[in-house]
């Protein structure tokens, strides 16, 4: 990870809200995703990798509050965040409970 720049967080270049609007979700009441240690996001991870790697932009960095917010309702359940999407392995992902989450009509 040496070649990674340690400069200020650049936000994603594209907003996926419109794309997610096409997807049917049945969100559960509580999150199936969790940041394990917020200090890692704050102090170690300068790039905020999850805000870029997640195809659903579930993770957003809030500079004012210095934390990652999780919009789990729009999660596509791909598993990127648990499998290298966070290079610090600082995200715990489970599947939503049965019957909840994304519902592909085409897939």
């Amino acid at each position: 990870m040496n070649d990674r720049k340690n400069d200020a967080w650049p936000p994603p270049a594209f907003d996926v809200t419109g794309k997610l609007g096409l997807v049917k979700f049945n969100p559960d009441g509580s999150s199936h995703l969790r940041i394990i240690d917020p200090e890692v996001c704050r102090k170690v991870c300068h790039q905020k990798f999850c805000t870029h790697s997640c195809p659903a932009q579930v993770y957003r960095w809030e500079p004012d509050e210095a934390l990652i917010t999780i919009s789990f309702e729009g999660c596509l359940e791909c598993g990127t965040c648990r499998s290298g999407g966070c290079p610090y392995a600082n995200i715990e992902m489970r599947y939503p409970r049965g019957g909840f989450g994304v519902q592909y009509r085409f897939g």
Partner: protein
Amino acid sequence: MTASGQKPGSTAYMAGAAGSGLPRFEAIVVGGGPSGLAAAYTMADAGMRVAVIERGDWSGSKNMMGGMIFTYPTATVIPDFWKEAPLERHITRRDFWICTKDATIRGSYETEDFGVEPCNAYSVFRSRFDKWLAGQAKAKGAYLITETLVEDLIQENGRVTGVRTGRPDGDLRADVVILAEGVNTFLTEKAGLGPGMKSEYLALGVKEILSLPKEKIEDRFNLEGDQGVAIEAAGETTAGLPGTGFIYTNRSTISIGVGVMLKDMVDRVTEPYFLLERFKEQPQVRRLISGTSPLEYSAHLIPEGGLHNMPRLCANGALVVGDAAGMVNAVHTEGANLALLSGKMAADTVIRCRGLGDYSARALSHYCDLLDQSLIMRDLKKYQDVAPFLARHPQLFRLYPEVMSTALKELLTVDMLSKSDKHRLIAKLVHSEIPVRRLARDIYDIWRTLA
């Protein structure tokens, strides 16, 4: 939300205690995708009491691929499936593009033979096809339990004896559990069969379904009737990252997406949807999809590590199949067919073990023998060096397309240079970008990796 934590109107029939009202199952399949349903269908067909546990509202509701299915392997599980299954178009043409910023080099293969029933391949929607497949398994007697997440395995005395679902009193026991849980191998990891899929061996695919009237699809893609085309594009398509773009024609929609190696994408701090938008904006793609409206966006991981990232596949009382077992041939974009075949082989093994009354890892390892003898392991062995090869040769996805394009452009531009001078100029251009020794070594490496 009801007191039991189930959705209102949930049709699930594990109401109350899971044990009550349910038969005792000989086999439990975790996951209602292609591999799990192939296993369930085969076991139920042999008269076994089988349950499929699917976390979605229906089989397929969490599934996504490019994609097309290949007929021959699918028919070995469900004979004559093409007569009834929800299929989109039969693929009569395969196009391969190598793209640079401003040019496309195309290869194409088309044959009437691919249009003769049963056709070689069909474009499908996973969500609809898997729902149909589940219906077939059910018709054979398999028990479908939907809207139910398996949260853990029940392990006793060193063997898997059942599953723990998210439902109240949701433990279910069986002689054998088939793990068809897909690329996110929560349970396979819990069974101690492997560490899970590594990011350097995972590809992330994102896709959109775009609607376009049937006639326009046929005009734009040069098709007639139910003919379809599958396009794969490499190079600038993925901004030089190892990966490809793809386009599949469906009846009145187009599936368009990109798949890139996850680790490279993360290292470059690139967004997957940005790559998809970029692909859609390339002129040769823009012309094909102009005037379409998007219907759905989706994302899924693909386990491309093959033998490098495969968990152990047999435990006492458990087998691993499909994506969870790393059964993807990335070079030939095959996954669902390997999933189906592996599911069937697991089922055949279980049927044999049932006769022996022995579900130990040793007895179940017959599954590994079947895999080894089959095209699955032979193909995965053959292509086992591709992923490491691509990691060592990032130039393949940017430098080589550029050099090929420059050479072709020079050759096809008619000006006042003699052809001999042009050939010399092209040779010089190529050598300035790629030293002869490196070119020779790369060609040798490619040949050794793929041939």
